């Protein structure tokens, strides 16, 4: 199986704070991978390095066989990487439909009727079609999270990066979001998902990578990872040597 995303020796620090320390991993095409780690471990920074919002100090980001380390965020989106933001960044003055249309026309490069149809079909998938004419700034938290997902999907990504999209939702909301993400994955989109809501993550992902202080400390199938001492220490505060 070929790697869709290939991270090699990625290094990034802000002064003394290291957010990526010789991080390396591959994501295969069609996979769904979860990323775990305590707050401040460098998970969102990792996404920023993959999408090009941050520039790496050293190391390489490969995507679909090409080295994209020096590419701009815009070029990476056009190549097929789209993300949702942990703190929703809606285009607040635009309608929900227009938010999706930005992704369809700019990221996916569609135009005219084709772009409009694509934006509508994504809104239908993510359950926001009824809100299509609402200004994005007026949406509720769940709707904003769905809008993040909508906008990322509207760019027709090969690789979808989800950053704590289930955080802050009620149980019912969370379940319907999981169903949406499962169906996106079932249609072949590769997903990398940062999430603290573990049951949501486990419902979708096939593999988990654990990060702490910018370092990859564990990687494997979800069951093994959740039982590993490193993860228990991070999430339950249990000393692995005890």
């Amino acid at each position: 199986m070929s790697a869709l995303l290939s991270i090699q020796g990625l290094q990034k620090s802000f002064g003394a704070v290291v957010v990526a320390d010789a991080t390396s991993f591959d994501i295969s095409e069609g996979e769904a991978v979860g990323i775990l780690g305590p707050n401040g471990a460098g998970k969102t920074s990792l996404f920023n390095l993959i999408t090009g919002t941050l520039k790496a100090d050293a190391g390489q980001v490969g995507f679909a066989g090409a080295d994209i380390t020096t590419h701009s965020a815009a070029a990476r989106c056009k190549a097929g990487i789209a993300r949702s933001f942990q703190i929703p960044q809606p285009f607040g003055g635009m309608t929900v439909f227009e938010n999706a249309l930005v992704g369809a026309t700019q990221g996916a490069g569609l135009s005219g009727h084709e772009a409009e149809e694509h934006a509508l079909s994504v809104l239908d998938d993510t359950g926001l079609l009824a809100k299509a004419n609402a200004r994005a700034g007026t949406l509720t938290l769940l709707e904003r999270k769905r809008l993040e997902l909508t906008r990322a999907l509207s760019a027709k990504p090969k690789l979808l990066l989800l950053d704590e999209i289930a955080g802050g939702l009620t149980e019912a909301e969370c379940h319907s979001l999981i169903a949406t993400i499962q169906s996106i994955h079932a249609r072949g989109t590769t997903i990398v998902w940062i999430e603290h809501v573990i049951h949501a993550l486990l419902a979708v992902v096939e593999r988990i990578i654990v990060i702490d202080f910018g370092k990859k400390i564990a990687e494997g199938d979800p069951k093994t990872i959740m039982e590993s001492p490193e993860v228990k220490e991070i999430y339950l505060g249990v000393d692995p040597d005890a």
Partner: protein
Amino acid sequence: MSAATVTRSTRASRIAMVLGLLGLVVLAAAPWWAGRADLRLMGEIYLYLSLACLWNLMAGYAGLVSVGQQAYVGFGGYMLFALTVFAGLNPVVAILVGALLAAAISIPIATLIFRLKGAYFAIGTWVVAEVFRLSFAQIQALGGGSGSSLPVAVVKELGAKKAAREATSYWLALGAAVIVLFAVYFFLRSRRGLALTAIRDSEVAASGLGIDIWRTKLEVYVVTSAFTAIIGGLIFLQKLRISPDAAFSVNDWTAFVIFIVVIGGIGTLEGPIIGTLLFFALREVLADYGTIYLMVLGLVAIVVMLKAPKGVWGLIRDRYDLELFPLSYRVRQKD
């Protein structure tokens, strides 16, 4: 699929379009029904409207909050004088050539000042404008620090009689405002306009969706600079006299323009129009009160910023869900 259809025009926008076109016909006929003083005032209103639309595109959409657009107003004005006097060009041709030169000069300036962010960018643009002012004051052939008048021979190219010249000058100002308004409108309606509107709302999300922020901003800066130079040329074609202090006045060409856009509603197409009308209404009412005029303007600006940060148009739009220029997309679901 097609469980829904997408439209852009609304009833309000269609009515506004018809009324706008009728209004335009009436305004175009003004030389036959308005007095000379009114004609001058209306010409000035059109030119301020254009400056406000352009500044709004830059600051309200592209996030380029410049306080130095007087650089291009003055540059356009001086190019009118230089190209007519020294190159013997027709005034209208000189203004258009001046716009191309302004576009050319704005590119290296942009690469320099785009390195600055936020307040530093604003100050940088002001410094550039001051450099322009001081440079033009050094050119003795254009009158140096005291400036010069447009030669009678050049003025007569607009018309042999005074009434004809004033009418021509009026139509040029009206034409420029219509062109600027439509250019901004069609740009914002296009795919790139959608991208620019996205940049207005969130730069980080826009770049993550494939929008090249730097290039989009550069395009906006270059085009607005060229149009601003055209307006500058027309302003000084009305005034017939230019000096560095008048040409590069931060008060006249930037402070008033910011006032117009902010009270009207920044980041909307309707805002600058409403703002221009309010500004001139205040100016005409307060014309006899001297400095109190400026104090009232300041007071109005403060009240609007505190009570209606989205401007007068923002208030109207939020209350009645109105849109005069059909930029939005509306989705209609069929069941």
